[in-house]
């Protein structure tokens, strides 16, 4: 009996994660409507039409999901987004590294930030051998410096590495 129940549970689709995008879409639509409500028709016609259709589509999806859960064909578990669990830590580590990249870029400058970012993300993803780790990070940082600072002369923030290299090469 318990085995049958488990089997049934396993057969049921976990559709809870399917709600994330619709929830985001609805929240954004409501916010969008709040910003256009008092504008002229030309400014709000397009957004109003798109937003209304979007709300309608989300409504249909919700109805479909409710029916699926009611019929016992699905559960509201978030498996699709959360499994495999062992990757979640690494994924959060990657997102954290990107946030850190954006935050420290104005202080460390492009080259050093890329180098630190590459080392950190490769470590998070399980690269443990120092030689490939350092050579890859160094090559990408050097490529970034040559490409974006020297050749293309973009306005990336300069840090200690760029300042030292500018002094050396004039």
């Amino acid at each position, binding site marked *: 009996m318990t085995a049958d129940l488990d089997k049934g549970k396993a057969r049921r689709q976990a559709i809870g994660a399917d709600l994330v995008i619709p929830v985001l879409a609805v929240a954004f639509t409501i916010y*969008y409507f709040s910003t256009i409500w008092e504008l002229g028709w030309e400014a*709000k016609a*397009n957004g109003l039409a798109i937003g209304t259709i979007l709300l309608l589509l989300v409504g249909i999806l919700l109805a479909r999901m409710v029916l699926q859960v009611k019929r016992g064909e699905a559960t509201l578990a978030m498996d*699709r987004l959360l499994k495999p669990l062992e990757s979640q830590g690494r994924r959060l580590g990657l997102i954290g590294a990107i946030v850190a990249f954006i935050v420290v*870029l104005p202080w460390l400058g492009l080259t050093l930030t890329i180098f630190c*970012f590459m080392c950190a993300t490769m470590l998070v993803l399980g690269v443990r051998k120092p030689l490939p780790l350092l050579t890859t990070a160094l090559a990408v940082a050097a490529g970034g410096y040559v490409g*974006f600072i020297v050749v*293309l002369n973009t306005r990336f923030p300069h840090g200690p590495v760029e300042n030292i290299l500018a002094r050396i090469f004039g």
Partner: protein
Amino acid sequence: MGWDFNLLFDLIKTAFGWWYIIIPAVILGTIVGAVPGFNAANTLILLLPLTLSMKVELAMVFMASLYCATQLGGGIPAILVNIPGTGGAAATTLDGYMMAKNGKAQQALVCCFASSVFGGLITSIAVVLALPLLVKLSFYIRSVEMVVVMLFGLTLIAVIATEDMLKGLIAGFFGLLIGAVGADQIFSTPRATFGFLELYEGVPLVPALIGLFAISEALAMIDKPTILTEEGKARAGKARWADTIEGLVISMREWWLITWTAFVGLIIGIIPGAGASIAAFVAYQQARTFSKTPELFGTGIPQGVLAPESSNNGVTSGTLVPLMAIGVPGGSTAAVMMVVLQYQGIVLGPRLFIQNPELAYGVFISMVVAYIFMIPTILPLARYLSKVTLIPTQYLAPLIIGFTIVGSFAPREYIFDMGLALAFGIIGYVARKTGYHVTAILIGVILGPIFERYLMRALRISQGDIMVLFSSTVGNVLWAMLVLSLLLPYFRQHRMRRKRLS
């Protein structure tokens, strides 16, 4: 205009003699096109000090060759790592990346190169032969007709969402609403900008593209040691020259598809303001509609690479038509070229073809020659480029994020855009994992603002009368074609079902 074959022959001979300009431009263009965040327009702006100091003919040859190559380069990362280098290559990811995952990266790259070269080549020749006629075409297509052209692109949302139409439509309309962020077309009042000045001009395309494709892909790929399937791993490990030849044979067999999708690109390219991304989406959608096996699109078939790549290269020739013939740049790259031409005192317009035919036709001839030079320069690289798919994801994911997050800064030079790319990356990751197509979101983000612009322009002219959309002959023909292309798959399905039953 009568044809002066001596002039034509001289122009071809001269263009081949400029190989030392064309080949570096082709290589640089391919690299620039492959790096998300960079495109022909911003590279040419950076290189203005160089092009302004060159002889005008040489500068135009350099810029035209670079422009052609960027469209080709955009397809490389789209196929190898699911990251379109330019907006025009976004549709290429749909089948190109699936081919790469199945260990057919080399064939996909060759299809991309061959269709880009062939598509660009025939449209450049067509422009040289039929320039006056093509100029007239741009007068017939106005905002009313463009609304319908946009709808052709938008119907792709429904086409790629065949697995779960409802989710696909939600993704598409979510994208359209994101595309409607920013100052409106008429009064310039900000809409849904969250108080960020950086969003007043709308959601920038490059961070959206990088987030939805590159960052979300990098976040998703770390579940597996490589991006390849088991079968694909075995096949990719044994990449041979025979695979390059196979790609060429496939492309040659599909010459008709390449030809007509290139002309779709050419026509869309002629219309000022339209661009490669619209052309590629429209071509993909149309190729699927008229395919005998539409259900295979999206599973990794060469036709899904050939159509958008041929079309986005057709755009390159088309964009220069209004520039040279009437002095109206068809896109941002053409606008940079106009700056160079005006700096050199060249007066654009019909007189240019009488007073300076060497320059007017020379640009298009040099495009033809650039495409010819691309064959030996780029084609052999497919075998080696395909090895990228073998790189373990623990190296590939950081490399992708590192390069692309930097690329998201490049076009506008705002650190804000990097944060925006991350936000889109997280949305894209959730969308991928839960079956909402990221391409559908991107189509909305790209086409949404352009659609609104043309719609508002049309409604403004008619003082709010919606019937203006059915007021022109060309527009009505396009409407009929749109309805036909939407109904055709259903009729075909119905016929096949009846055949099966009988």
